[in-house]
């Protein structure tokens, strides 16, 4: 039996009185590519945000390589870990956001190297070499000295992915990385994600690109009302959904 890289147990999360995650369990083994699909408000993005502690959660546990993320439980008391410890744990995962969130005052290369020098404590030269390597990998080495405002949405997202992946995370989280892009820019970003998947990167991606989820995922999770509605192999799931909700969702989505 292979150990799980990511282990989510009975995850509960509320925003005020609204419970958005009502007990989610999920195991991810190294090398798996898992797509989370579902209608908006079903809790897809919230799962990713809990995994790297951008959101606090009230119940359940998340473990990466067996290490409990964000909280520690001792003597029945659940306590939030110290900020420094949480910062270290966040660097175990990389995240790409819907809105790219590049640092606007830094060049593409500086965006990638900031975490390498500050968090990974690399020397300037080593960080630069690694940063250039990853920018090359996403096809943007010639743009390394450009500021984000001078890059297209697709290019910004590729820099953002390079920034996350350069930190050599155990797990990559992609949060609707193509949703803010013009249609003609979607393909270049998906191509980068696909090539990372083919390299064996473990990833969890929230997406509305059903065709893409179908093609790259080893497993698909369908979220419905804060719970996992259905999960499994994409071919079987998309061909013969077991629940009416998934059937209706696939019908209304762009999958064709």
């Amino acid at each position, binding site marked *: 039996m292979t150990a799980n890289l990511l282990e989510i147990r009975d995850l509960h999360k509320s925003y005020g009185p609204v419970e958005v995650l009502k007990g989610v369990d999920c195991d991810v083994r190294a090398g798996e590519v898992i797509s989370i699909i579902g209608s908006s408000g079903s809790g897809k993005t919230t799962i990713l945000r809990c995994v790297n502690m951008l959101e606090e959660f009230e119940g359940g546990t998340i473990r990466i390589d067996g290490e409990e993320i964000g909280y520690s439980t001792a003597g029945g008391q659940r306590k939030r870990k110290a900020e420094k410890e949480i910062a270290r744990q966040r660097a175990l995962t990389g*995240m790409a956001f819907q809105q790219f*969130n590049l640092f606007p005052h830094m060049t593409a290369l500086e965006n990638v190297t900031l975490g390498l020098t*500050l*968090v990974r404590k690399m020397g300037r030269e080593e960080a630069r070499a690694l940063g250039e390597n990853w920018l090359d990998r996403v096809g943007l080495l010639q743009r390394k000295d450009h500021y984000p405002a001078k890059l297209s949405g697709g290019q910004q997202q590729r820099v953002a992915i390079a920034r996350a992946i350069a930190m050599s995370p155990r797990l990559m989280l992609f949060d609707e990385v193509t949703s803010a892009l013009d249609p003609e820019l979607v393909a270049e970003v998906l191509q980068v994600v696909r090539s990372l998947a083919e390299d064996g990167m473990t990833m969890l991606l929230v997406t509305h690109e059903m065709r893409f989820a179908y093609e790259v995922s080893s497993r698909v999770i369908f979220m419905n009302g804060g719970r996992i509605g259905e999960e499994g192999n994409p071919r079987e799931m998309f061909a013969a959904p077991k629940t009416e909700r998934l059937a209706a969702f696939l019908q209304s989505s762009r999958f064709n």
Partner: protein
Amino acid sequence: MGYTLNFNAVWRNFDDLLWGLGLSLTLAFVAIGIGCALGLILAFGRISRSRLLSVPSGAYVTLFRNLPLLVIVLFSFFALPQLGLRLSKGNSFVLALALYSAAYLAEVFRGGLLGVPKGLREAGLAIGLTEGQIRWRLILPVMFRAVLPALGSTFIGLFKDTSLAAAIAVPELTFEARKINVETFRVIETWIVASGLYIATCSILAALLRRAEVRLAVSR
């Protein structure tokens, strides 16, 4: 009329005006430096979720924005010694201008901080930066670039406010001009030259700030 312009008396004392201008710039520079640091702390205080920080910061800004600078200057020079704090003329003016400018700069910085996109902080957190690193490496530089235009006009306004130091006989530009005026009776000439020096200095400051703006612009 019969008034003939004669600038000779002013030119003979021109050195005094230049020394005065130098002092004006020094006062402004030191006061604004302190004001920026204090203003930044106040701005973070005002947007803090803790009322223990936001309420006093807000009260400070309200207090100092509702007082005329001249009143603060006179209070600092005449009233503080009664309370046991005795400062030189120059220092008491710097204190007054620093406290006053902090209130205005806090508002400029607060606006800038509120305009920094939330995603910036999250992107920093996601790569493992600490809150302190995010504040210094991401939020402050982005905020600073965004507020530069507003900051520039605030700086120039504060530089001109140094003329109020004449009220407590700090020998800056306005004080020197008044001295020449009284000694030589060349009223019009004196104030034309003094005005010219203010205008020239402000124009140079504005040009420098505009260059900084262009060089640091977020969208290059």
